[in-house]
């Protein structure tokens, strides 16, 4: 095992951008998991007297409220932490569902490539990609109660076609390789080939796409709640914090700015990780 750890450490040392991204993501995960226990104030408790307090670095800051308070005096730090929890929770789950749907569609259509099943599945993927996502999201979220689960379903609808396409092309490519022919010649059944042989190559083809996808999901989730069609209060999302702060923007700009910066940092970290993974797994580059 130590040999593998050494390998990982050397990888981290050689790719500083990946490491920075990883650290930020680990902090985010920590906040997301322990949000309710590390929150300084009760995110829903309003105290009108501390209303619209600026963050600690400017005058008139209320003690304890490091990043200030919103228009009914709720502490911003605690609301942002809870917002991170929702965003992380929703984006990871939605990308997870997207991978599962994408994998099944990609595998089936890749294996049955020249056949009709493949073209039907591909047309379905095209339809999904052709649909302007925001419109689809709004229609569905008005069709069904905008709960956390419905958000996850909507977000996974946005990203499964990308996975289906990536996996389909990998499966089509790999199907022609000699080691698959050798397995067939040995009498391996097609299910065994699909699961044991093709299955092992899914991770390296998904891993480079995942970070970018989670980043996309976080942006879209906060967007939906910003347009008040996604997560509804009392659930807290970075999007609806920003939406609340919007009409006080000229006086207390930080209510909108800070959640945006938080989303940006998380997404930036994910993009950095994604870039490095793409270079690492791209066969052409490290031949």
């Amino acid at each position, binding site marked *: 095992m130590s040999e593998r750890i050494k390998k990982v450490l050397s990888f981290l040392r050689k790719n500083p951008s990946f490491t920075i991204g990883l650290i930020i993501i680990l902090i985010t995960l920590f906040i997301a998991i322990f949000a309710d226990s590390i929150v300084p104030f009760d995110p829903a408790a309003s105290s009108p007297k501390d209303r619209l307090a600026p963050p600690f670095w400017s005058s008139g800051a209320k003690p304890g409220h490091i990043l200030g308070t919103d228009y009914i005096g709720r502490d911003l730090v605690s609301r942002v932490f809870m917002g991170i929890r929702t965003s992380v929770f929703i984006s990871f789950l939605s990308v997870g569902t997207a991978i599962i749907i994408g994998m099944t569609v990609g595998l089936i259509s890749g294996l049955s490539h020249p056949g009709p099943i493949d073209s039907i599945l591909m047309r379905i993927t095209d339809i999904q990609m052709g649909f302007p996502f925001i419109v689809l999201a709004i*229609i569905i979220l008005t069709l069904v109660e905008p709960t956390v689960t419905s958000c996850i379903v909507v977000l996974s609808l946005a990203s499964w076609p990308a996975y289906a396409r990536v996996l389909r092309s990998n499966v089509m490519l790999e199907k022609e390789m000699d080691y698959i022919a050798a397995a067939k010649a040995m009498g391996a059944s097609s299910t065994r080939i699909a699961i044991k042989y093709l299955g092992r190559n899914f991770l390296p083809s998904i891993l480079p796409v995942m970070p970018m996808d989670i980043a996309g999901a976080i942006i879209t989730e906060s967007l939906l709640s910003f*347009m008040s069609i996604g997560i509804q209060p009392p659930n807290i999302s970075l999007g609806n914090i920003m939406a609340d702060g919007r009409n006080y923007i000229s006086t207390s700009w930080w209510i909108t700015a800070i959640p945006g910066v938080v989303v940006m940092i998380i997404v930036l970290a994910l*993009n950095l990780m994604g870039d490095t993974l793409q270079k690492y797994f791209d066969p052409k580059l490290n031949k």
Partner: protein
Amino acid sequence: MLATITRRILQGLIVIIGITVITFVMLRLIPSDPSRTMAPNATEEQLMQLKEQMGIGDPIPTQFVKYVKNLMRGYMGYSYFQKADVSTVIAKALPMSSILLLFAIIIAVVFGLLLGITAAINSNTWIDRLISGFSVLFQSMPNYWVGIILIQIISVQLKLLPSTGYKGIRYSILPSIVLALPMTAVLIRNIRASMMDSINQNFVKAAKARGIPSWSSLIKYSFRNSLIPMLTLFGTQLGVLLGNCVVVEYVFGYPGIGMQILNAIVRRDYYLVQGLVALLSSFFIIVNMAIDIGYIYLDPRIRKAQGGL
């Protein structure tokens, strides 16, 4: 070769029809009833009469058949809340959105190419790291948040550009910049990657070995070779752009197609939503179809494989 083109067109049509049918059915499944929102305090049988008039009383399949018949005659249905034909509503909103999209595409393609190629030419220098750094940064910024911040800084405090509504070209500058930002970032990084990749192609090395000075062989040879990956990327990014267009119009209160769609869905204005969705999705699919067909003329190898040479 003709066969490949026709097959690709057929595929495109199937997808457009698919989207229209799905929107048609999904809209009708939305629980609340548009006639109630039209006339909130009408009695029951007044509502029935209104429904009949709006043509949403009978079962979904018959509505769909009627809709298709109208479509054949070029009539896209009536928008109840705008009190106008769907086509007129679209005709009013389309020019504004197209200006926004056109500006955004021009900005994204120009800066994408410019910065992408410069980053590729002097790769692994500080210029490259600067450009790549900024492009990752822009790509990570949520565009609606950038919109609000720019409105606050540029139009409210510095009063340089108007921020809401539309009373002239100046109104679409800020929204198109915000719309162009993420796409520019993606174009920069991908153009840089495909240029770097095509520089290592064998035929570019062979050109250099024939004495062609490196900068000219780089641009002339590599560019043509990275044209196809760029077009594919543009095709997929177009879908993202259309989606962001709706968002930017919401943030800026910009009266284009996006704004219309948002209000139409909330108000259950069936035929308007139907028309707008068909417009957006067919635009995206037709552009992608044109790009796929374009490959045949761009790359002689594909043309030969299709038996066209």
